[in-house]
């Protein structure tokens, strides 16, 4: 219990309905505990409630039913609002719509400035945060001259400067090209490993989810699967039934299995998959 950073209990939420309609539940009794220092991926097709879930993690939305605690603090307590938001930072999809200032250092300083941190310390935090995302040479650049991946790293730096315990990324790689996506993923993995920051990665990409320690699958406002990537990503039939794909590697291994090869189905990365196939072929050769 001590090391749960975010705890949700029977969380329910629905957006205010348009006139004449009955409000549709966006979250339908989600119970979830996220451990400090873990790397959790959240999967789900469009409209399954991923963003709604994310917004409950830092009190942007407040539960209509159930409870959410961040580091033991009830998110409904208005006095704790800033502290909750400081501990759980959020990176969004569109890099352009979350950058506030037109100089990189000013943007990274925005969070600490709001928290009333003394000037000298803001300076240190900004430099440290930019270093942590590998963008220190861009301190004085204008953000609109940067690439998408670089902008997202600046957004991450802006959150790190608040010294959070957890970073939630809501499809933050969706608008990026493959190299930008790799930049962002490498950055968050490093922050997770080296600084022990908890990462919640919301994504559509199976290969991104495969990087996590744990995967939560959402469908219709419920958490329908929860477990290690090797366990979740190999449940092909179930994933297909809720409109998700399995990684190409898993699909290939399933196919080989059906054709009578003795391969494991839980080799997720391309390298592991190749090794598994080679191992299966070796006795025949």
């Amino acid at each position, binding site marked *: 219990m001590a090391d749960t950073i975010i705890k949700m209990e029977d969380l329910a939420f629905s957006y205010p309905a348009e006139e004449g309609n009955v409000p549709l539940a966006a979250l339908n009794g989600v119970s979830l505990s996220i451990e400090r220092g873990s790397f959790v991926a959240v999967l789900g097709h469009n409209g399954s409630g991923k963003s709604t879930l994310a917004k409950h993690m830092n009190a942007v939305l407040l539960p209509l039913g159930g409870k959410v605690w961040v580091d033991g603090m009830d998110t409904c307590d208005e006095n704790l609002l*800033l502290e909750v938001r400081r501990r759980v930072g959020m990176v*969004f999809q569109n890099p352009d*719509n979350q950058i*506030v*200032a037109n*100089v990189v250092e000013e943007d990274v300083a925005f969070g600490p*400035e709001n928290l009333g941190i003394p000037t000298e310390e803001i*300076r240190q935090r900004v430099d440290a945060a930019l270093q942590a995302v590998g963008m220190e040479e861009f301190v004085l650049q204008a953000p609109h001259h940067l690439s998408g991946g670089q902008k997202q790293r600046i957004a991450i730096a802006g959150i790190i400067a608040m010294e959070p315990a957890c970073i939630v990324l809501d499809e933050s790689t969706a608008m990026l090209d493959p190299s930008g996506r790799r930049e962002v993923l490498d950055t968050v993995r490093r922050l997770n490993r080296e600084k022990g920051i908890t990462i919640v990665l919301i994504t559509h990409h199976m290969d991104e989810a495969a990087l996590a320690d744990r995967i939560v699958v959402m469908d219709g406002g419920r958490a329908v699967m929860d477990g290690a990537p090797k366990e979740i990503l190999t449940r092909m039939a179930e994933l297909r039934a809720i409109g998700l794909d399995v990684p190409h590697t898993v699909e290939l291994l399933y196919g080989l299995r059906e054709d009578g090869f003795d391969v494991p189905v839980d080799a997720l990365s391309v390298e592991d998959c190749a090794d598994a196939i080679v191992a299966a072929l070796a006795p025949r050769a």
Partner: protein
Amino acid sequence: MLKDITLGQFFPGTSLAHRLDPRTKILLTVVYIVALFCAESFVSYGLMVALLITGVKVSGVAPKALVKGLKPVLFIICFTAILNLFYTPGEILVQFWVLKITKEGIFTAFFMALRISMLIMGTFLLTYTTSPISLTDGLEALLGPLKKVKVPVHELSMMMSIALRFIPTLIEETDKIMSAQKARGADFESGSLLDRAKALVPILVPLFISAFRRADELAVAMECRCYHGGQGRTKLHVLRYQPRDYVVMGAYAAVLAAVLVLARFGL
């Protein structure tokens, strides 16, 4: 092509004019404008021209860039000058039909044109040497006392800096939408004024919709980063007057005093 437009142009640099505190520069620009309107004679105008030239020299801004800034208002300058030329009563020099040119008219027209040009060049000197951020910071600090009478100074300066932040983004977006509409056969360059205005509608509508969506997302992102108004907010860059600020302010005060004294003696 739209990307070439830069509002409130700024030329980065390290000259004395660049390093001055933005508050100093804003104050000096105000003093300069007041002095311009007090100046009435060759001597005092000479003093002001000298001041402007010194400013330009110190800033290292190319005089060409300043003159270029005059282009959009050239019409207004000429118009005012011509009005003054013909409609100032006094000692008549030339007369044809109802138009008469007076000696006083020539002087007023000349001084008017000079005054407007110098006013514009002076303000451009401010924006050329001060980054938009320090400009907003300076304004916020200078207007700070107005907070006491409930003027939302912090909010206004936040709006201004967000507007500055989004100008390039929105320009880029306009460019994209225009290309998309052109690809569908839209024509923005020919036809009557009305036709061209109509052609703008398919650009403005998507632009507005997207601007609202951006505003919505930005507001949430700002909340997530603990923004809660100006209360208890600290700053990465705190403005501090340096000795150079006092020296330059002193020099300006002396020039203003000289212009006022000269005006008093009708010079």
